[in-house]
């Protein structure tokens, strides 16, 4: 019987095995990086909205507090998106003729809710709760960035599991006094870690169980 492969093929076959491994590794590395990158996770990409609602204008310009619109952030899992009624408390009198605000007035007339596009959206298998974070000294700014300066909201964090865990492993790096959670000018003290450890103790943050899978995957 004739040989199927010539002996010289040995070198080629060995080389090709190595090349295949390298290729797989490279593709894996690229896709892992893409997966974590801003491009894939939409980080820092302002989201188009049906009405160009500006946090910069309303919060920084007019001094309206987050709680005026996101009413349930301190007491429930969901931060709350304001109903049309909330916009109308002011826009029944202000900019009443502006075409930009016609969808708001139409929504109020017809009782059909406005449809905002979600910016942050965790997968349904992960559980998140605002009230516990806000009560234990986690500021909106730490997770959402300087929303008060955003003409349209974008995502500042990837919301990936590694991001949650970065803080759950060391909450002392991010914690601040509860009175300061809405303060966007807050500067952490020089000795943040020592100060943070004190607050972690004061607010009784249960650091030991914070990395248990069952906390976020229930």
């Amino acid at each position: 019987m004739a040989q199927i492969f010539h002996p010289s093929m040995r070198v080629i076959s060995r080389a090709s095995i190595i090349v295949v491994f390298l290729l797989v590794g490279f593709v894996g590395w690229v896709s892992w990086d893409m997966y974590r990158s801003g491009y894939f996770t939409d980080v820092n990409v302002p989201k188009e909205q049906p009405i160009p609602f500006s946090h910069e204008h309303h919060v920084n310009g007019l001094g309206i507090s987050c709680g005026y619109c996101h009413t349930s952030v301190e007491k429930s899992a969901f931060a709350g998106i304001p109903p049309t009624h909330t916009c109308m408390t002011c826009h029944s009198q202000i900019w009443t003729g502006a075409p930009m605000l016609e969808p708001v007035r139409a929504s109020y007339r017809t009782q059909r809710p406005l449809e905002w596009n979600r910016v942050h959206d965790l997968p349904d298998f992960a559980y998140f709760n605002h009230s516990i974070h806000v009560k234990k000294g986690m500021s909106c700014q730490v997770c959402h960035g300087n929303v008060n300066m955003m003409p349209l909201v974008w995502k500042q964090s990837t919301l990936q599991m590694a991001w949650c865990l970065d803080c759950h492993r060391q909450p002392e790096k991010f914690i601040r006094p509860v009175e300061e959670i809405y303060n966007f000018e807050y500067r952490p003290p020089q000795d943040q870690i020592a100060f943070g450890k004190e607050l972690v103790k004061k607010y009784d943050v249960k650091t030991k169980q914070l990395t248990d899978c069952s906390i976020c995957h229930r």
Partner: protein
Amino acid sequence: MTKTDRLVKDCFNRHALRSALAMFICIGLITGCNDMYDSSRIKPLEKNSFFTDGSSARIAPEGTVARGRAVNDDLLSTGRVNGRLADTFPFTITDSVMARGRDRFTTFCTPCHGRLGDGGGMIVQRGFPRPNSFHTDSLRERPAGYFFDVMTNGFGRMYSYAPSVPVEDRWAIVAYIRALQLSQRAEASTLSNEDRTKLFRLAQ
């Protein structure tokens, strides 16, 4: 066809078939898993085509009361006793109630009524009709229930704040307004020594 040819072909067919099958199953599993990213669980306010208005959040039908929301206390929920605006509070006013009132007043009322309640808030400066100052005789003489009633049902061009401020918080705000009213005409001599020195230090 030689024997070798057949061997090669056989080999190729079986292996190729199997690995192709395995690959399809893998791909199926991976994409199948993605359904868990958006399962049929509904997040608050998520869009839902089941109802004609497209909203998953439902408004309670008229005449029904949500579980745990029943209030059998007229004073607490309407500010009235026997149909008349009351000048009493439904619970005792403690330091923490007052702090809460201050916090809620700052969030919901200062945009128009201003920090002092004088009616010069930021939204008024941008063209909202100017409300009366809380520091007029007629508003000082109003019973506590009046302020509660305005927040609950709205007043003229001011919309109701009942959707965003729960009843207890509305009462806390009333308490804080009372404190504001007092603060604008209290005699310095009625203060404690400590508070008076603090006041003078601030005034300088």
